[in-house]
């Protein structure tokens, strides 16, 4: 197998993790990874051997994600919202998640895509600010403010979840 392809194969687990944190749903996340890989394979000449393909692949995937989010935002879409908390809890989990994991994953999905991507890039994927700013194509200052706002929002949502849960207990 050629060296480039082997290096790309090695990045798939991390691409899948990043996609999962952006989209949550497993099949959708893998679809995004597949789109990314197809595009990357079509532009292999853009990547210099000897260099890790990680940043190159993350950049491609991020662009696919953000372009699509913009289109979606323009269209405006509807989401299902169960009225009863008990229904939300009985919704089939696509994977075994602890309650804490589910709450933080839900909260992560609720923050804006730009902030989510910035936060995940640094906090989960471990890129430096300079690397993340480069991949996301934004100035370092913008990246920093997205990370800071993203963290604040995430925390506020988690606090809110705890508060709501305690209200529910009182209601019963």
């Amino acid at each position, binding site marked *: 197998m050629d060296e480039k392809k082997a290096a790309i194969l090695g990045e798939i687990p991390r691409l899948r993790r990043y996609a999962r944190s952006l989209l949550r749903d497993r099949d959708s996340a893998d679809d995004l990874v597949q789109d990314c*890989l197809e595009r990357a394979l079509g532009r292999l000449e853009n990547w210099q051997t000897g260099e890790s393909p990680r940043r190159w692949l993350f950049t491609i995937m991020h662009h696919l994600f953000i372009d*699509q989010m913009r289109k979606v935002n323009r269209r405006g*879409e509807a*989401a299902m919202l169960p009225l009863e908390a008990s229904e939300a809890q009985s919704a089939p989990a*696509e994977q075994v998640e602890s309650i804490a994991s589910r709450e933080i994953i839900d909260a992560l*999905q609720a923050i804006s895509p730009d902030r989510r991507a910035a936060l995940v890039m640094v906090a989960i994927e471990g890129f430096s600010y300079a690397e993340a700013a480069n991949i996301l194509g934004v100035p370092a200052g913008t990246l920093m403010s997205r990370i*800071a706002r993203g963290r604040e929002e995430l925390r506020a*949502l988690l606090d809110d*979840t705890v508060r709501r849960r305690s209200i529910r207990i009182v209601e019963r």
Partner: protein
Amino acid sequence: MSRRDFSERDIHMALDGELPGDERAAYDAWLEANPEMKAKSARYIADRAALRAAFAGVLDEPVPARLRKVVLGEAPARTPASGSRWWLAAAAAAVLAVGGLGGYFAGIGGVGREDEAEDQLAEQAIAAHVVYAAEQRHAVEVPAADKDHLQTWLTNRVGLKLVAPDLTAEGFQLVGGRLLPAGQGKAAMLLYEDAKGERVSLFVTAESAEKAKGTYAAEADGPEAVYWLDKGYGCAVVGSLPRERLAAVAKSAYGQLLAGLNS
């Protein structure tokens, strides 16, 4: 060591390993001297650990064969139509970003399906609300003073046994109602108002073949609809209230409408 003032921004930098090494000691001292900032830092550290833990398992999952095949050049070419649908999940995420109700979300699985019927109901209900709730003198055809007549009239026209819900507990009084076209049929609109003049409307039609419920907003800062469809009727509650209040109004209205329909 140069002394400088630290701020919340430094909490993020320290957490992300971006604080210069020679500032670390001064930063730690600053954190010790500011309990509020120290608590904030501790929460962010815990959140990061939770985030990492939540996604750690993905790295250990076997790589799906279809992804491997793309790289190895064994994948059949995809047509755009049969291609990826990941953007449906992205759409759901976009709505959550607007609504900020992650905790209530039942998961993305339910969103990907075709949901034109409820979109249509919600859009009609929002359009009616936008037009009539803004009217001061001509908002309704039959005022609340003629409530019995209003209920009988709308019941006969729409073809559903309609009882105007009592939303007093939620702070809303009935203003009145009107008859509207909806798709191929008719819809009843009931308008309510609170002490501050804030209005919500109920939109009920007898047209529906499927069971669904959800929320819908045509624009991020426009009124929002909470809707239900069941076999034989569709109902939406529309307003520009804070989301939890709208949900409370909707829940109360739903219970009473349902009780009325089945009475």
